[in-house]
């Protein structure tokens, strides 16, 4: 199935002046070549782009994040490794990625877990309903969100307790898994610990 590349590339380029949800270096294992390649990743909405270089005009590739499973990968050759598993039955892929340090790993896991359209819709639905109820109770005509992007700053910190609870719940499970990996690594005499990682990494996660 051919994708309408133009609409995706326009979205990618059009937003170059607007900060993405997350971007940075990740190591990516090739599909055929089993070595890790350094790539620049850009997360916008439910799309994860990867580029050979940060300033490239066209991404090397695109990963659709709907219905993906994102999880840390224990026992990988790279520390701070994680997998994005995409649906598609037998045709689905497991993208093997790795962050360069524990902070990056945690930040990416967080960002990717919350990136889907479906999840955004789930957050939006009750809020919209609550707003309409409040308007009705106040005898007020409900307003509409702005059509235009404008220069709306998106405060990523202002989440309700419910959302934080849900989000941190996921993050805690992931971090526990990663933490166990580091424990094992240092228990094994640091044979698989990253240089300068090991103990320090574990402490930071605590």
């Amino acid at each position, binding site marked *: *199935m051919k994708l309408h590349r*133009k609409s995706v590339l326009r979205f990618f380029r059009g937003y170059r002046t607007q900060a993405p949800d997350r971007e940075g270096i990740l190591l990516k294992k090739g599909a055929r070549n089993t070595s890790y390649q350094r790539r620049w990743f850009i997360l916008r909405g439910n799309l994860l782009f990867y580029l050979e270089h940060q300033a490239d005009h066209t991404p090397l590739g695109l990963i659709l994040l709907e219905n993906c499973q994102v999880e840390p990968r224990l026992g990988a050759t790279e520390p701070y490794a994680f997998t994005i598993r995409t649906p598609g039955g037998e045709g689905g892929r497991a993208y093997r990625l790795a962050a360069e340090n524990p902070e990056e790993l945690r930040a990416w896991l967080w960002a990717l877990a919350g990136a889907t359209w*479906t999840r955004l819709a789930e957050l939006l639905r009750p*809020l919209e309903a609550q*707003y309409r109820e409040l308007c009705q109770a106040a005898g007020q005509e409900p307003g509409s969100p702005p*059509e235009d992007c404008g220069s709306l700053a998106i405060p990523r910190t202002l989440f309700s307790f419910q959302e934080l609870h849900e989000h941190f719940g996921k993050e805690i499970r992931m971090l526990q898994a990663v933490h166990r990996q580091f424990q094992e690594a240092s228990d094994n005499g640091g044979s698989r610990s990253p240089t300068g990682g090991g103990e320090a990494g574990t402490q930071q996660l605590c």
Partner: protein
Amino acid sequence: MRYNDKELQALSRQPAEMAAELGMRGPKKGSVVKRRLVKLVVNFLFYFRTDEAEVGWWGGPKLLEHCRVIHEEPNSFSISFLEDPERKYHFECCSEEQCQQWMAALRQASYEFMRRSLIFYRNEIQKMTGKV
């Protein structure tokens, strides 16, 4: 730009936000109207001929970001993309009501629109209740 074909196919088979048979016409002058099953899944628009999502003359499933939805004649609307506003994809519905439903759904399908909405509702609720 590489992507996994199967991911896109899997998406096209997901339960749709909207699905209906609509008349469609491409951007070129003199294009013929074709009736197709059109499916809105998250922020992507697919169309199908039989079971397989088709590509053909309209270039494949479209990402609905930075997309302008315009009411054309009665029962009809068009979509175009911000950087190419002259290139319109036309849709014919069987009623004005269906037309309005699709227009609203397409506008609200954009991830960026949903994000703005989240902020808008949160702010409004806070104003009205004094609580976050």
